[in-house]
C-alpha cells in the first residue's frame, strides 16, 4: 500500500514540475522587451481606475458555505457506501435519517433564499 502512496507522491511532484519547467524554458527562450505601456494592466481595454481587489458579493460566500456542508457530508457518506454490503437494514435507515436531516437543512437554506442568484 505504501508503494501506491509513493507513486502518488512522485506523480504530484512530477505534475507540478512539468508545467513549471515548461514555463521556465519558455521564459528563457522568449524575448524580453518590457516597457511601461505594455506592462500596464489590460483590464478591458480602457485605462484602469480605483482599487482592483474590491469587495465582492455575499452570494458567493453563501454558496461556498452550502458547498462546505455538502462536501463534509459526502466525506461522511463514503464510509457508509464502502461498508454498504455488510450493513443491516437498520444501519441503512440510520444513514437515510442522517441524509434527511441534511436535506431538511438544504430546504431551509432554499426557503431562506440563499440559493437564488440576485
Amino acid at each position, binding site marked *: 500500500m505504501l508503494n*501506491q502512496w509513493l507513486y502518488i507522491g512522485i506523480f504530484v511532484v512530477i505534475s*507540478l514540475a512539468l508545467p513549471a519547467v515548461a514555463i521556465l524554458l519558455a521564459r528563457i527562450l522568449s524575448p524580453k522587451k518590457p516597457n511601461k505601456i505594455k506592462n*500596464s494592466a489590460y483590464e*478591458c481595454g480602457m485605462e484602469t481606475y480605483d482599487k482592483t*481587489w474590491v469587495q465582492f458579493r455575499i452570494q458567493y460566500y453563501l454558496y461556498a458555505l452550502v458547498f462546505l456542508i455538502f462536501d463534509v457530508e*459526502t466525506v461522511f457518506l463514503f464510509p457508509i*457506501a464502502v461498508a454498504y454490503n455488510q450493513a443491516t*437494514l437498520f444501519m441503512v435507515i440510520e444513514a437515510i435519517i442522517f441524509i434527511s436531516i441534511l436535506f431538511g437543512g438544504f430546504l431551509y437554506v432554499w426557503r431562506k433564499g440563499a440559493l437564488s*442568484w440576485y
Partner: protein
Amino acid sequence: MNLIDFLRDPIIAISDWITNLFSNWGMATDWATFLLYLIGAAVLGISALLMTLFFIWAERKIIGRLQDRVGPNQIGPWGIFQSVADMVKIFIKEHIIPTGVDPIPYHLAPIVLVASVLMVWAIVPFSNTVYGSNLNVAVIFLLAVGGLGEVGVMMAGWGSNNKYALISAFRASAQMISYEVPMAIILLIPVLLSSSMSMNDIVNAQNIPYILVLPFGALIFFIASIAENGRAPFDLAEAESELVAGFNIEYSGLKFGMFYVADFLRAFTSALIFSTLFLGGWKGPGAEAIPVLGAFYLIAKSLIIWFLGVWIRGSFPRYRIDQMMNINWKFLTPISLVLFMLVILFSKLVEPVGQNMQYLVILIINLGLFFLSFRILNNQNKKKVVAEVGSRTRPVAKPDNLFSKDVSRG
C-alpha cells in the same frame, strides 16, 4: 520473451526489463522501485500533455465542422500539425507581466491548474495490469484534486490585478464548487455498488457497465462534469462578451498556453473518469487476456464521451449565471440526494434476492426518477411562461409598448 508476449502487454514488459536492468546493476530494491515509479510518472505525465496537442487540434476541427467552417487546414494533412505549430509559437512569445500583479499567486496559478488536471491520471487504471497507482481512496483523491483546480482559478483571478479577472474567478469557482456537490453524491453510488473506493476495484466489479444500472446517475454526473470543466453551455467563466476573456486575461505567452492546455486536457480527463466509473473502464471482450486491448477499449470509450462533450459545446447556447446556479442547486443536487437515498433503501430491501435483482431495482428507480423529475421541470416551465405573458407587472413599458394587448386593441 518473444514478440507476441511483448505486444500483449508492452508497458509491463518494459517495466520488467527496467527492473531487471536495475537489479543487474546491483541496485537496492527500494531504489529500483523508486526510480521505476519516477520513470513511469514522467512518461505518463508527458504523454498526457502531448496528447493535449491532438485534442486541441481535434476539438478545433470538430467545432469548425459543426459550425460549418473548415477548421485548421493549413499545416499538414487536415491541419493536423496546427497545434504543434501553435505550441512552438507560444513557446517563443514574450511573457508580459503587468505591473501591480500579486506575484506569487500570479506565477503559481497556471502550474497549479495544469497539475490539478494531470494528477487525476495517476489513479486511472488503463488495463488490468497497467495503472499508475491502485490507491484505496482514489475517489476521495479525485474530489480533492478537483478542489485544487478551483484554487488555481482563484489564484489566477486574484493575482492578476484586474477587476474582470477577479469577477470571472469568483464566478468560475462558484460554478466549480457548486457542481462538485451532485458529482460527489453520484460518485457514492458506484462506490456503493462495488463496495470499494479504489478505481481498479470499481472497474473489476463492473460485470455490467454501471451506466446500464444507473443511467440517470450517469447523466447527472456527465452534466456536472461538463459544468465543472467550465465548457459550453456552462462557460460563464469565459463569457467573452461580458468578461473580456475570463480569469486568464492578464496572462500571455506560455502561461496563457498552460490555461489552454489545462482546459482541453480536463475535457478528456473527465471523459476518462466517466468511462472508468460508468462504462466499465478497460473491460471489453478479450481485455483480460490481452491488456493492450483493455487500454484501447478505455481510450475508445473516453473518445466517444469526449466527442459527446465537444458536440454539446458546439450546439448549445450559453446559460445565464442564475439559470446555471439554479440547475445545480435546485435540480441536480436535490435529485441526486433523493436518488442516493432511494438506492440505498430499496437495494438493501431486495438484497436477499440477489445482485441482479438489486441492479434491476436500481435501474427502475433511475428511470422512474428521470421521468418524474423532467415532468416536474416541464410543469414548472409551463407555469413560468404563463406568469410572464401578462405584462401587468411592468407598468412602465405599458403605455407605449406596441406589442402589448391594450395598444393593439385600441
